[in-house]
């Protein structure tokens, strides 16, 4: 619930980002490695989606918790088929939760209209009611969407996992390709917006490859 609240309402300290929410979920469920793996892969997906103002964006708080739970609750070891199913369930939860955030914003309009005359008069109680109701409803939304997503997606993922016939090598190659493709696209978006960004990216890339070579 707190991770869901953090996305918009409180405190926007980015504990809702998958790298945090999925990892903490994994730690709480006793599988920190599964949690951080889910968090890292979803964080790559989240890199190019930024919560700009009134735009519709995925709710990574709920997504991170769902992905962290799915990765942690599936049987060990953490194979690439589990990682792929974790990505799928996290992204599905992000989309579902994004829709619920839009719905909440319309509900907030209705609440606002109910108290419009009191607000126009500058009544403090109306301000407090509208605001605390908004936060309360957001907490409820986050809790409900998280619970429903975990219940439905975990059952679905367990079922799909038992019928997974693609070879582990192909599954891993596909997973790495998807992550690298999305990651480089997000990086491109970043350095395209910056003067001489490609040079900075290239310098970083050389340093990264150098570290790998030396290790």
């Amino acid at each position, binding site marked *: 619930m707190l991770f869901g609240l953090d996305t918009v309402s*409180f405190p926007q300290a980015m504990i809702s980002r998958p790298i945090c929410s999925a990892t903490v979920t994994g*730690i709480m469920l006793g599988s920190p490695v599964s949690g951080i793996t889910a968090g890292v892969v979803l964080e790559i997906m989240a890199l*190019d989606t930024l919560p700009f*103002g009134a735009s519709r964006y995925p709710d990574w708080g709920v997504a991170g918790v769902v992905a962290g739970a799915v990765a942690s609750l599936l049987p060990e070891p953490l194979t690439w088929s589990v990682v792929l199913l974790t990505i799928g369930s996290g992204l599905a939860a992000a989309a579902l939760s994004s829709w619920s955030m839009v719905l909440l914003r319309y509900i907030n*309009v209705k609440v606002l209209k109910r108290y419009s005359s009191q607000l126009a008069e*500058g009544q403090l109680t109306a301000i407090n009611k*509208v605001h605390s109701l908004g936060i309360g409803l957001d907490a409820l939304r986050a809790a409900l969407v998280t619970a429903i997503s975990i219940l439905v997606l975990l059952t679905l993922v367990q079922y799909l996992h038992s019928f997974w016939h*693609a070879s582990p090598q192909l599954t891993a190659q596909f997973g790495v390709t998807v992550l690298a*493709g999305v990651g480089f696209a997000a990086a491109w978006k970043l350095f395209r917006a910056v003067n001489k960004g490609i040079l900075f990216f290239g310098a970083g890339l050389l340093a990264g490859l150098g570290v790998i070579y030396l290790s």
Partner: protein
Amino acid sequence: MTTEIRVDKSNSSSTVIPKPISAYVRAKVLCRLMMVQGSWNYETMLGTGIAYAAEPLTELVSEERRAATRSRQVKYFNSHPYLAGVAVGALARAELEEADPARILRFRQALTSPLGSMGDQIIWASWLPLSSLIALAAYGLGTGPVGTVLIFLLVYNSAHVVMRAWGLHIGLTRGLQVASALNAPILKKIPSIVGSLAALVAGFALPVLAHRLIAEHVAPRPWMLIAVAISAMGLGFLQPKVHGWQAALVVVVVFTIYAITL
């Protein structure tokens, strides 16, 4: 500890010198600013959130003006949440100075766009990706789960908290003259500096992260490189119509169907 608000009489239409604002009141406002988006909606957007956050300051406004102040505060307003403090501070100071209500409303309207775009550029488009990439790089270099989370939260929130506190301070100090502070050249340079740093860290983080994730489980194939290049370029051109996560969801679903029907 109290900080006195100095009134610039040459530039202000106000006639009242407000009482000093205690650190306690500032801290209360800062705490409330953390939930400024709690009642975000498509009609007044941040309006009620601004009124809620400003309440400890509104209580200092003269009693006969207080209700009118609140009714002005709940009106439409939007900004980046971390910079909402600029508006809360500046508007509260204007109310405390008993500035002309029409001028306050005009000022409020004028503040919406700059605070939104500045925050989006500095935080969402630059600092957040940089913080994520630093944490991803740390993980790629072998940092454990707890360490990775701590690195991300500490890096990100160092700027987050400073920005919120700075915003409130500058708003309370400058009042209706806050525009000059927002036009400071350094603020315009920050997105470009942080963006360059983010591009550098992105270049570093992606290979080290891939190296750790792949470990010994994946034998790289030439088709993977080609697919990565095509998908990265394709997504680069399709943005912002199609985001990476949306494309990833589609291909993961397709591959899952393939994997279970083999």
